[in-house]
């Protein structure tokens, strides 16, 4: 499966092996792991709760993976995103991309993260010493995603 939304943790090493061993033509594996930090906007974060829109989440992630495969010469991609309650140092998200040469997997991996950040319906709520709060969307994420839209026009 190309995308998974789950409460359980994931094993990066195992997922990587499973993805690349299917295909002896894989020469490059780029990956990204997002991790819960103990600090955000200056406040201590004791835990994080991730809400999502079941159904739409999987669909939007699959669309993003399809788009990456259209754009770059990659073999496979995997996105795992966790939901529910997470603690500092917990893994949140994994993006893996395999390709023959490194340029394609690097670009596709960064693209997947940038698009996921603005298009996949997940919302983070932080529990801090100052109480609970919904994490605000970052302008920098919107502009990171827009780079790729621009590139397409070129």
């Amino acid at each position, binding site marked *: 499966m190309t995308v998974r939304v789950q409460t359980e943790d994931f094993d990066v090493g195992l997922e990587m092996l499973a993805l690349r061993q299917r295909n002896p033509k894989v020469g490059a594996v780029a990956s990204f792991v*997002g991790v819960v930090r103990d600090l955000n906007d200056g406040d201590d974060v004791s835990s994080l709760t*991730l*809400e*999502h*829109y079941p*159904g*739409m989440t999987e*669909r*939007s992630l699959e669309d993003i993976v399809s788009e990456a495969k259209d754009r770059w010469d990659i073999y496979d991609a995997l996105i795992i*995103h966790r939901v529910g309650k997470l603690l500092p140092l917990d893994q*949140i*998200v994994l993006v893996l991309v395999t390709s023959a040469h490194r340029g394609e997997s690097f670009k596709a991996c960064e693209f997947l*993260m940038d698009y*996921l*950040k*603005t*298009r*996949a*319906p*997940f*919302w*983070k*709520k932080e529990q801090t010493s100052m109480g609970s709060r*919904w*994490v*605000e*969307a970052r302008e920098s994420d919107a502009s990171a995603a827009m780079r790729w839209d621009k590139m397409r026009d070129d």
Partner: protein
Amino acid sequence: MKIKVLFFAKLREAFQTNQVEVTFIGSDNKVSDVLIALRKKGEAWADELDENKSFRIAVNQEMVTEDVTLSEADEIALFPPVTGG
């Protein structure tokens, strides 16, 4: 025409519900008509769905703009800008 509207995250909390049903007489209703109806449900609704607020709209699980025309049994969802990853 009956339309189901789902809410997530901050909107779900502000409205104290995760979904409502909106009924229209006649067809050719747009997402914007749903928003007009919802804003009348109370202060929190008028406030969170104000035109100046940046919420997102999905129809049948695809993000759209409010000028999209709705069909019977469409699933609308309203939610804040996403913050996953």
